């Protein structure tokens, strides 16, 4: 079957003269930049307005355009937001909420990371029977709306005598943060070579020793990612803090909403915006300083299993 096949002449329509080289500034490329620039403006608009509003006096706000730069710059709204606004019963500013959020976020980050790491470690290296099924249900639970679980949890915590306290809110954050934390660590450990684990077992390591001496030291990258995700999630939480933290421990987000939406009398928009920025500051700063890790966390957490 080696018959010579004649070919049709190549269909080449390239003129000898110069074909237009792919220039950098084709209309399509300009269109791309225009779209991206426009989108960037849309995304930056609220940030700009927040900042600008928080630095104006109320007269300027009433009289002028929301987009105008302050004529007279003032940081008085910030001072007021931090130490003077009324957040419910007291009028001490939103700084109380800030420290509450800190007090909630720190343990609510450390504990879920620890448990998530142990879970991930047990799931990927030891693989006890039935653990994968349990993990599957845990993951499914992450999608269940919180409203389904909230009231029974209130009753449970009340029964244990800790409802409306710091331990309560930390426990709740642990319960709701466990799926994503476990997923992150389990996927990360699954990407580590199993031989490492086998070698450690041959060397005589038990469950906890291998975890502490071999696995945990290797976990620094994923711990960073998990911390970023958990800090952001806990700090930005509203509904859990509202229900479980108790009046003395209300996080900043809850207090912020109280300040802005339940104030009687004149609304001080500049103070409101200053308070909003203060509340959003921690996760935003974290994001701007850790960009790549943040994205890594999203990608890792979003690719469920």
């Amino acid at each position, binding site marked *: 079957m080696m018959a010579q096949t004649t070919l049709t002449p190549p269909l080449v329509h390239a003129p000898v003269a110069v074909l237009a080289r792919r220039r950098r500034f084709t209309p399509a490329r300009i269109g791309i930049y225009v779209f991206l620039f426009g989108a960037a403006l849309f995304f*930056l608009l*609220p940030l700009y307005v927040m900042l600008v509003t928080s630095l104006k006096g109320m007269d300027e706000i009433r009289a002028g355009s929301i987009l105008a730069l302050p004529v007279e710059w003032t940081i008085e709204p910030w001072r007021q937001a931090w130490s003077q606004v009324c957040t419910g019963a007291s009028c001490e500013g939103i700084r109380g909420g800030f420290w509450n959020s800190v007090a909630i976020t720190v343990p609510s980050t450390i504990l879920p990371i620890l*448990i998530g790491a142990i879970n991930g470690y047990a799931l990927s290296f030891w693989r006890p029977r039935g653990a994968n099924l349990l993990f599957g249900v*845990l993951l*499914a639970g992450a999608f269940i709306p919180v409203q389904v*679980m*909230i009231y*029974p949890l209130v009753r449970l915590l009340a029964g244990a005598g800790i409802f409306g306290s710091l331990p309560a809110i930390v426990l709740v954050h642990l319960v709701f943060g*466990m799926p994503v934390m476990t997923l992150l660590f389990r996927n990360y450990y699954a990407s580590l070579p199993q031989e490492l684990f086998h070698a450690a077992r041959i060397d005589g390591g038990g469950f906890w020793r291998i975890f502490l001496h071999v696995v945990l030291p290797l976990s620094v990258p994923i711990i960073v990612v998990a911390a970023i995700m958990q800090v952001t999630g806990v700090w930005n939480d509203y509904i859990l803090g509202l229900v479980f933290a108790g009046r003395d421990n209300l996080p900043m987000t809850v207090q912020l909403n109280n300040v802005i939406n339940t104030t009687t009398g004149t609304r001080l928009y500049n103070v409101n915006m200053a308070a909003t920025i203060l509340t959003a500051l921690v996760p935003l700063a974290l994001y701007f300083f850790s960009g790549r890790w943040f994205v890594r966390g999203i990608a890792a957490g979003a690719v469920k299993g």
Partner: protein
Amino acid sequence: MRAATPYAALLPMALTVIVAYLGTMLWTLRTSFTASRTFPSDKFIGITQYTRLFDNERWMLSLHNLAVYGLLFILACLVIGFLLAVFIDQNVSGEGVLRTVFLYPYAMSFVATGLVWQWLLTPGTGIDGSIAALGFPDFVFDWIVDQDLAIYTIVIATVWQSAGLVMALMLAGLRGIDADIWKAARLDGIPAWRVYVSIILPMLWPTVATVFLLLATSVVKLYDAVVAMTQGGPGTASEVPAKFIMDHLFLRSNIGLASAGAIMLLVPVLALLAPYAYARSRRNRERGHA
């Protein structure tokens, strides 16, 4: 003895799943069949709470709002997120800056997002004021206080917040595509838009499915943004199921009704999870154990 340690270590997980997830769900389910009001009661009344629920005007409105919101939110996020990802993937300069700009809203809480957009869309002092000043003196954007249009303002605010996430995930998906496919398409003389539509998008199907699932669950959970932005108003015009349930649990002291609502909220989530989980497990089985 040694074999027990992994099980012991997984005790917190087991407790969480059994008590905090399954236990509470079952409790809520049970309560939805009772006549509980301020306190849980043991009086079983069958599906009466559910019939009451669907006779409740506010609940029906919240369902309608969620449907409208969900459709618009998911569509807008998918389209905008995809377009942003595609355009950024075109070797544009300043990609890092652009990505930072599109994604930072995701680092803000729903509350902060709602409050800022509430301010932006306040009729008169908001953006419409600036546009009016540009030469359209009668221009007023009062959706946020309009009964029929308030829900759309929530769409705007939450799309602003979440589109960047969709972009990040789509971009990761795009970057995972074999570069040689692009070369082969160039050689075949296929125009860029056609490559995206006929080759790339079908290849990105798993990413799109994941994104869809994430967006859908966040639609069902919509609460903070509504509370911050419109408080469900004007009146109850922008009510959503999650808020209905929370209000009836804690403010209006009708636990039975709220539980029925919560179970109903579960239905779409399970309806989404089941095919997704099935598709994943089937794919894992095809590939051998993942």
